[in-house]
């Protein structure tokens, strides 16, 4: 399967999509500009003294790119420890400079949703009533072409 087919497969059959009724942590990545958001549900178990992501699902209000990013990142995050998940988040965010801004915003939203869910879990170890954590993205979701058009219109 080449890269293009791989992406189409994720669009047709997003992995790990939907609510996870048995989750014990949840986090949210948000784009404050347009109201798009990604919720990441985790079922975490303790393994050899470290939290381990036994299961993960996501739900999103967003575009197809967000769904593809959610499908890929949650597939990578399933069955790994929190420290590996933190690495996955930094690698994902580190790669965003090389992708178009609108795609970067979608991937960042998923990565921050995962980060928020890890942090919510940690906080709930100290205080079980700790509310869900949300993080806002820093990338701009507006496609360059549209941004140029808006600048033209303002002139």
């Amino acid at each position, binding site marked *: 399967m080449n890269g293009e087919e791989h992406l189409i497969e994720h*669009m047709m059959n997003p992995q790990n999509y939907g609510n996870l009724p048995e989750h014990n942590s949840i986090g949210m990545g948000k784009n404050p500009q347009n109201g798009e958001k990604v919720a990441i549900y985790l079922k975490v178990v303790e393994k050899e003294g470290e939290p381990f992501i036994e299961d993960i699902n996501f739900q999103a209000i967003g575009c197809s790119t967000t769904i593809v990013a959610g499908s890929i990142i949650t597939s990578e995050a399933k069955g790994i420890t929190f420290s590996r998940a933190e690495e996955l988040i930094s690698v994902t965010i580190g790669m965003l400079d090389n992708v178009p801004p609108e795609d970067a915003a979608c991937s960042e939203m998923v990565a921050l949703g995962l980060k928020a869910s890890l942090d919510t879990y940690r906080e709930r170890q100290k205080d079980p009533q700790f509310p869900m954590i949300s993080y806002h993205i820093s990338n701009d979701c507006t496609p360059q072409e549209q941004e140029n058009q808006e600048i033209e219109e303002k002139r």
Partner: protein
Amino acid sequence: MNILFKEIHELWLATQFTGFMSQTKSRQELYEFSNIIFKHLTWIENDFVKKDIAYGYDIPQVPIKVTHISVMINDLIRRIEAIEEKLSSCDDEHITFRMKSDLEYITSILKTLPEEEVESAFDSNRAYPNIELTTTARDALTVFLFEEIYKEYELILVYNYSKANSNNAFLNRIFQILIDESFFHLRSFGQMMADMGILSVPRSLMEEIYKFDDLEQFLKDGIEEEKGAKEECKKLAQAVSDSSEHFASFFMFINNQENYHIALMEEALAYINKK
């Protein structure tokens, strides 16, 4: 009864999307059956509202990737049998009787539908029959179809939820028109997805999308989204105009239809503000 509601929701989608796979007269039968099953969903929903029972549209992904239509037909029959076993959980005997009668008839017809190979609906080929698309046009069309099939499904459920939970005849007339319009678009895009080998059922909706507090804001956002969709249609019409006059005119037609949706939403907005 909540399980019954979810299973009817899944059956509605499974029936509708099996219709997209078919290249024979079965398509029309399946479309009609999906209409009937959607009506069943609204009957149960109205009963929930009357009895003040909490409900939602959250369902698991409905699997549809098959090589032969008989696999889906057998799946639909199995789903109907499971629903029939749960009909007793609905204590409105009139609804139960009507649903039972409809489902028995649907099953009897499903058993007679001919076999068809449907692999091409899922082969990701992204070639449109008898139309040469440039790479740009093909990619633009692919993204558009994935975005819009979800959008139309979302709109059907959002307006349906608003209608079920409102007693206002003026607004409900508008919601019903918008539901009917979205059904037409869902079917147009679903057929195109099957033709391009990328057929898939839209993902389920997050609850906050349809359980909103501010109808006015929802309508304002909806108008902006429709304007955005118009622009997408215009861009798409341009992108495919070299490849296909038929496609270009189809997308201009969809673009112009969005004007009507905007007018309806503006009418609803004016009505709310007047009140």
